[in-house]
């Protein structure tokens, strides 16, 4: 029944879930942000139009995004072992989570950056700004609201994936839910973990939306 070990387990579960989600999202952006920028620049009408590069990146993203996360988790296990030293636990789960997040992030970043008004980009071009300046000072700056909303969505998705990793001992709340709720038919424990997962997602969503609204200088007072 519910005792202090259970409480400790839950707290550890929350900690591990947040750890996996945040770190994987962070690594995901390290890979995905340049990917999204490259997609934006090389696409038709981009500042560095390049069909070959765009198509290649586009295809890689489509392929990786088509692989169901559970399969990806298993497929990359050798890599995970190589990088982390083991294939289970929350740190190990970060590897497949990052790989699943990166292409999704690439797409999100691409769509955010493409929302930036063309006229504004042209204004920067006409001032003699180089591509680098335009990307960092104009594109990212002007797309920040959309980029932040993207981060919120990615966090939610990665958290969902992290719970799935519980199937192979991935750690965190998803792991607890599967071990207690599914293998031991301990429904109350499963429900409690579920409540926590929902609460975390909710919290991220609220904070993300609030921040995005604050940073939007276009129409809110």
């Amino acid at each position, binding site marked *: 029944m519910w005792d202090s070990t259970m409480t400790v387990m839950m707290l550890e579960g929350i900690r591990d879930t947040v750890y996996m989600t945040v770190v994987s999202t962070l690594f995901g952006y390290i890979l995905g942000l340049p990917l999204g920028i490259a997609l934006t620049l090389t696409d038709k009408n981009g500042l560095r139009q390049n069909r070959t590069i765009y198509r290649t990146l586009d295809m890689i993203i489509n392929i990786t995004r088509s692989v169901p996360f559970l399969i990806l988790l298993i497929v990359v296990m050798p890599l995970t072992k190589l990088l982390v030293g083991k294939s289970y636990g929350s740190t190990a789960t970060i590897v497949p989570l990052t790989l699943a997040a990166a292409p999704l992030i690439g797409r999100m970043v691409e769509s955010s950056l493409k929302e930036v008004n063309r006229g504004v980009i042209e204004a920067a071009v006409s001032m003699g700004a180089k591509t680098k300046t335009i990307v960092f000072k104009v594109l990212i700056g002007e797309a*920040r609201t959309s980029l932040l909303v993207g981060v919120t969505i990615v966090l939610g998705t990665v958290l969902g994936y992290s719970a799935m990793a519980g199937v192979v001992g991935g750690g965190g709340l998803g792991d607890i839910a599967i071990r207690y709720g599914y293998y031991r038919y301990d429904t109350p424990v499963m429900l409690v973990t579920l409540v926590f997962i929902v609460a975390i997602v909710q919290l991220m969503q609220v904070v993300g939306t609030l921040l995005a609204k604050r940073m939007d200088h276009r129409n809110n007072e």
Partner: protein
Amino acid sequence: MENSLLSIKNLHKEFDRNTILKGINLKLNKGEVIVIIGPSGCGKSTLLRCLNGLEDIQGGEIYLGGKLLQKNAKDISSMRQKIGMVFQSYDLFPHKTVLENILLAPVKVQKRKRAEVEAEAMELLERVGLADRKNDYPRQLSGGQKQRIAIVRALIMHPEVLLLDEITAALDPEMVHEVLQVVLDLAKSGSTMLIVTHEMAFAKAIADRVLFFEHGEIVEESHAPKAFFERPQTERARQFLKSFEY
């Protein structure tokens, strides 16, 4: 070899097999104000865009200060810094304050000292009567105010030529005046400008030379703008000017 600041030779521009510009020849001297008028779609805005390397061209040459301007050349960035451009849709950066909008290019592109540029920005803002709006975001400004900021944003680069592309076309009539007043002051202080506009009274007042464009060609060119607006030489220009009368 070239005395003129900006020299356009036999400029051809095509888009999807449509010819937009059919061999434009034009020289713009320092301190001169040329106004281009003509019906919509005649290629006048496209010409301005070509002059800033925003469009690919299919033939001809553009020289700025004797240097060939090419869209994909290495030195295009430094060439563009010498050509200020103001657009119909203002195109201020929505997430940047007025001051940030103005400072971006001189600080990040020209690598000038922020403090120095900021002092100059304040002077220019004072000149256009918007010094008190420096911390506002574009959405807090009226169209006329946005356009005056866009002009300041171009001026702070110390361009050798200013290209103004229908800068009052999106404005309410009351705001047209405040913007054009700024441009008139610039002309008085000796700025070199190439202006595309539909404001005929303004064109008459500011132009040293008027070009009437149609179908990608210069149909009529006049060094005496007042005479041109009263007695255009070509039938087509006469018809066009008549469409502004009631």
